[in-house]
């Protein structure tokens, strides 16, 4: 088990190094002039230009810049924003709380609803409830997060005025955005859970368990569920990536000023240090969560744990 995890950790470390290079050098391919972004388009004297290039390490070779960037990141220094003239790490730390709260709340909400729902639908497969809910979930899977956000805002904030329509601060501010994000995940996860449960329930070892005289409840919860949950975990881990992006969209809708807002405004103003830094951070989080998920696999499945 320890060996498996170590191997997995090393793997993601290698991926992270390659990803960091991809991010850094992709951004260098940009045809636009970084000084123009820094000065917000104003023309400056050669002297000022020189100073700015030195200040942002732009006078060095790309390889050296990459080296400095990586070295800085390891020390917690993600560089300095062009448009705000503040350290990226400071900008991020001011906004990260909102995004983390949003993502965590919606994930927990989604899993708490989706897994039990999926189990019920699998047991009642092809009943009226199953069919009706499957159509509803199809619609929600197909609805972009931002549309759900906009509709929630229209109905619950603007018309009914139950919740604030924008900003952050209280728990009430979080309700609509996290529900908007969760709904998509509930739809997808419950579908996967249902499918996976149905498959497990029709497998040979379940027939054998019935032949042992094991009752239906024990079969569903002790035998089938553990096996069925493996693909659910896979999908959830993939969704974590989608969720980080979903947070960006929902934050935009509800003007929450989180990491997403920062990222989008930086893209629009070619603020490369922020784009690089935030992208890299998101991927680190994504990779870390994937490792957590793989640990879960190992805990559940002896075939992974013992080999």
């Amino acid at each position, binding site marked *: 088990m320890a060996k498996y995890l170590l191997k997995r950790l090393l793997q993601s470390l290698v991926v992270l190094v390659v*990803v960091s290079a991809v991010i850094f050098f*992709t951004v260098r391919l940009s045809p636009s002039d970084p000084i123009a972004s820094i000065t917000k388009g104003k023309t400056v004297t050669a002297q000022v230009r020189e100073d700015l290039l030195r200040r942002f390490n732009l006078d060095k070779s790309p390889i050296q810049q990459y080296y400095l960037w990586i070295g800085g990141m390891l020390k917690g220094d993600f560089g300095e924003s062009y448009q705000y003239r503040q350290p990226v790490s400071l900008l991020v730390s001011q906004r990260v709380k909102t995004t983390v709260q949003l993502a965590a709340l919606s994930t927990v909400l989604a899993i708490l609803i989706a897994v039990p729902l999926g189990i019920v639908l699998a047991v009642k497969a*092809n009943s009226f409830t199953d069919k009706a809910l499957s159509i509803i979930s199809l619609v929600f899977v197909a609805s*972009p997060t*931002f549309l759900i956000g*906009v509709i929630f805002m229209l109905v619950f904030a603007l018309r009914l005025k139950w919740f604030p329509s924008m900003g952050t601060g209280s728990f009430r501010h979080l309700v609509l955005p996290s529900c908007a994000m969760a709904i998509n995940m509930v739809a997808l996860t419950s579908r996967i859970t249902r499918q996976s449960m149905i498959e497990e329930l029709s497998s040979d070892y379940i027939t054998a368990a019935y032949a042992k005289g094991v009752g239906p409840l024990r079969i569903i919860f002790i035998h089938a569920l553990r096996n069925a949950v493996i693909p659910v975990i896979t999908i959830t881990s993939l969704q974590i990536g989608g969720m980080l992006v979903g947070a960006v969209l929902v934050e935009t809708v509800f003007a929450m000023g989180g990491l997403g807002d920062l990222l989008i405004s930086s893209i629009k103003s070619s603020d490369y240090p922020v784009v690089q830094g935030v992208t890299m951070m998101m991927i680190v989080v994504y990779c870390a969560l994937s490792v957590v998920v793989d640990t879960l696999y190992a805990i559940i499945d002896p075939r992974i744990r013992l080999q």
Partner: protein
Amino acid sequence: MLKAIIGQKTSKKNSYGKLLTPSFAISLVIFIAIVVLSAFAPVFATHDPNKNELQSSLAGPSKSHWLGCDVNGRDLYSRVLYGGRTALMGALGVVGLSIVLGIPLGLVCGYVGGLADTLIMRLCDVILAFPTLLLAFLFVATFGRGITISVVALGIVYVPMLTRLTRSLAIVEKNKTYVSAAISLGYSPLRIMYRHILPNCISTILVQLTLDLGYAILDLSSLSFLGLGVIEPTADWGAMLGQGRLYLLVNPYLSTVPGAVIVLSVVSLNIFSDCLRQYLDHTQVQLPSFEEYASRLEKQQKPQESGA
């Protein structure tokens, strides 16, 4: 009587795993309608989608403007039609790119294996380390906004997913006896991959592609919604929704109509894909009860009797 009817020999053809179920037909009709309306937008549109009529800014539905106008006074109905062109063509581009690169790469990885497989799979790992839209964000940040950049960026993200799927299917097929038989008959690897393995994987791939088409519509509209996709004044569902949300209380149609069209096209694609999968996967076929079966047979019997 009943017993005798049930005893009738049924046709050998599989009669319950039908593709043309009601939900399949409905979803197909809806999707084709959306495609036709967007493809022939100039025919169906009532106005020039990019013409500003500031006097009718944010106007509600009326005789001349069926769904009202946006803040610049552009006709919403016409823009939805033209927006479909952008969304559908874009999604088609994304999926097309993934087909052109993903399927051959997947076949080579799965069937040939070895060093090529290892290298390609590691590359896929790196791309998949980026959550879907994040790589697109990076591309847009670097090369600027625009539909082409968005399509290429998303295409690159979709390729490894299709490569992985094709690869895993190819590995399953590779281990089947008929592939060994083909090798022992002296067939070339290219023939085995394209004539034998691919036809046996294609149905599963097709199911995935229809799903991907829906996801591509969603992802492209997300980019446009954030203002990172199409450039004004090009009509696009996501971008329209993004602008419309600022006037939610004044004219909710501005965001809800493009939103509804997005949902409708993606839902129909998903149902389409679901039906296709159920049709291909025989274990998913829902069987009638004995009573239903008997009454069904009785119905089939009746017209024959009356005809005779």
